[in-house]
């Protein structure tokens, strides 16, 4: 029986392979991108094209090399796989080309919402989505007699119940490691409170206000229920705490749900009771305290027309609906036509349905993120006031933004 299914799967993938073989390109394709299975799957699809050489350099350090690799003329990389945060660095330096002509010519299989347009021009094609959302342990919540939280206030109250009943000492989890992770959590919380990072239409920072303080106070209150080492816990460490059964509720990346539900990595009771839910709101707001993310691909500007076309065709083949088989489907929350959401995708879908905000695609958002990551940890340790921490963030950001020419 088992052998038969394997054989069937083989036939299926062979069939899929033949449709993929229809991809014919006539020039070189070279892809740079992050390294995880979903991106590998896309790159493999691009490599299935015949007629031209397709190379892929997938590495966690892609952001450090993609810009340099696309600035030359001709560029080394004809395509960079990026996310909504990192496309900005490529647009700032003007190394990616508008795709409108290629979309009109070859983009028939694309859904409209896959097109990332900036000022009316298509700059990237998105293929997967991600978001942080609530995960909870149904058994612990049941024992404590609480409902799954809809708001962060509920979460705090629930955490107190769990601790008071002696179920867990540190019932909450969170990737609060100082640096990128902490800045991301603040971004979520600040957006949930309805805050704006900048004055409209300018790069002047506006985080040092009551909304910012409220967001920080909420983070501080949550951290009281986290492991005391929370400032060193990145999402790897937080997931590990979860798998060990030490945490009852956390806000975690949708892309990390697969391993949390993997029976090989955790105890049966944790796997069975790990439940995904929509992201929470905070302070009576409607916007959930999370951000939506997409991953997509771009085409380099400094390359011959033939290579741009070949790149577009190969990448289209990488995200072709035909390739969504049993192997590829569970790898991510795909934006590709014909994708049927798996169980691990409910959180991300709920986030999108609640009209969560995408992570801002602003030229200077990255500078703000860096400043937040470096300056907020003093407050989280109780070494300075929230106002002082936010003033430091604005000062650090301003210095950086002046250097980069966003502020005078």
């Amino acid at each position: 029986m088992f052998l038969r299914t394997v054989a069937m799967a083989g036939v299926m993938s062979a069939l899929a392979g033949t449709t993929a073989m229809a991809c014919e390109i006539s020039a070189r394709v070279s892809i740079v991108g992050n390294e995880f299975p979903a991106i590998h799957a896309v790159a493999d699809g691009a490599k299935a094209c015949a007629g031209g050489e397709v190379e892929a350099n997938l590495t966690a350090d892609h952001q450090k090399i993609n810009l340099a690799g696309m600035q030359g003329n001709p560029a080394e990389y004809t395509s960079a796989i990026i996310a909504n945060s990192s496309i900005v660095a490529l647009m700032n330096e003007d190394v990616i080309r508008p795709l409108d002509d290629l979309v009109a010519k070859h983009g028939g299989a694309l859904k409209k919402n896959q097109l990332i347009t900036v000022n009316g021009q298509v700059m990237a094609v998105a293929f997967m989505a991600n978001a942080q959302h609530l995960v909870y342990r149904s058994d612990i919540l049941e024992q404590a007699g609480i409902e799954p939280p809809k708001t962060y206030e509920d979460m705090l109250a629930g955490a107190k119940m769990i601790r008071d009943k002696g179920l867990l000492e540190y019932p909450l989890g969170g990737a609060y490691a100082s640096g990128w992770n902490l800045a991301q959590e603040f971004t979520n919380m600040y957006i949930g409170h309805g805050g704006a990072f900048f004055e409209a239409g300018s790069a002047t920072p506006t985080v040092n206000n009551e909304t910012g303080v409220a967001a920080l106070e909420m983070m501080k209150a949550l951290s009281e229920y986290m492991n005391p080492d929370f400032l060193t816990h990145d999402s790897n460490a937080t997931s590990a705490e979860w798998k060990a059964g030490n945490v009852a509720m956390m806000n975690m990346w949708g892309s990390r749900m697969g391993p949390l539900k993997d029976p090989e990595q955790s105890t049966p009771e944790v796997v069975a009771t790990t439940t995904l839910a929509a992201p929470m709101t905070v302070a009576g707001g409607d916007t959930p305290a999370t951000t939506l993310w997409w991953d997509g691909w771009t085409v380099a500007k400094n390359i011959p027309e033939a290579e741009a076309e070949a790149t577009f065709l190969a990448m289209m083949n990488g995200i072709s609906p035909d390739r969504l088989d049993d192997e590829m489907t569970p790898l991510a929350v795909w934006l590709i036509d014909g994708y049927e959401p798996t169980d691990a995708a409910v959180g991300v879908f709920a986030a999108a349905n609640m009209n969560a905000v995408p992570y801002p695609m602003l030229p200077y958002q990255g500078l703000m993120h860096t400043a937040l990551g470096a300056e907020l940890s003093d407050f989280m340790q109780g070494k300075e006031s929230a106002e002082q921490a936010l003033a430091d963030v604005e000062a650090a950001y301003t210095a950086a933004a002046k250097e980069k020419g966003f502020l005078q």
Partner: protein
Amino acid sequence: MKHRTFFWFFLPTALAMLLFIAMPIVSVVTQSLFTPHEAVLITSENCGPFGCKTETTIDQEATEALRAEKPLGRFAGLSIYLDRGHLAIAEVSDAWTNRESFGGFVSALGNLPFYRAIGFTLTYTFTVTPLLIILGLMIALAVNSLHRHLKGLMIFFSLLPMIVNPLVGSLILFWMIDARGIIGSALQWMAGDPDLSLKASTPMMWIAIIVYGVWHSAPFAFVVFYAGLQTLPKDQLESAQIDGATRWQQVLYVVVPHLMPLVTFVALIQLMDNFRVFEPIVGFNAAAHATSLSWIIFNDLGGETRQLSAASATSVLTILGVAILLSPVLVRTWRDFKGKT
């Protein structure tokens, strides 16, 4: 040695260093004096999988014109060196005029990234360097006195802290010192405090990084000293013995002077390496508690938007810092050098 002979002997290494170090340094210094052009911002309608939104973006055509005119960017002079991310002159003088006490001034300095990093970097450098030299010397002397069959094994095991890849090494150590890891549990048991956590307190984190630093670098000092001990002249030791020197005196007056050039060498290299401490901070996720100049560079280059000018300025400051730090050793070397000629 004649100038000509010297030239040919030295040429290959000089070429390598010129091409791959000197030229980049020139470009880094230039980079630190220039900043990118002012970005011409426009409001735009951006759409994606999650709907449309009015955002700000860069007007590429307008910016392109600026770039073509001056490819290096705007000349910024020393302004980057003096901004808040670096020497923070304005903030420091502000803190000085508004100080309530000297302690208040120091804590205001601690709130500025550069001074905070310098604080940890100097503490680290001046504790780790002497400790690792002493430890390395002790290990070298002890291993040297072992039976020769044991020596090889000891050399290998002593080198392990250096050999094991720091990436994963620090990951595993990071886990071992966790409150629930084997070393963390042992410390809790020894201290009699079940809530002790190295990672939650700044002083403990500093100590953990310093201990890691000594542990990681002591093998280097050990191997250099051990090789030096092999050339120790026996007759000097014997004549000291005949003069009735105690073992301690032998070490102090015969062994240490013989190893002195190597001690200088190890001190030079380690002062420099420790001043650029980086790996344990990243490996232990310790940025909330301790930062260093190299970490600042890493942070500037690692963001979504890379701050090349800021990173260049910090790099130049690092070089200057190393030069100041090494100057006493260098003056000594200069005297030795002149004494010889």
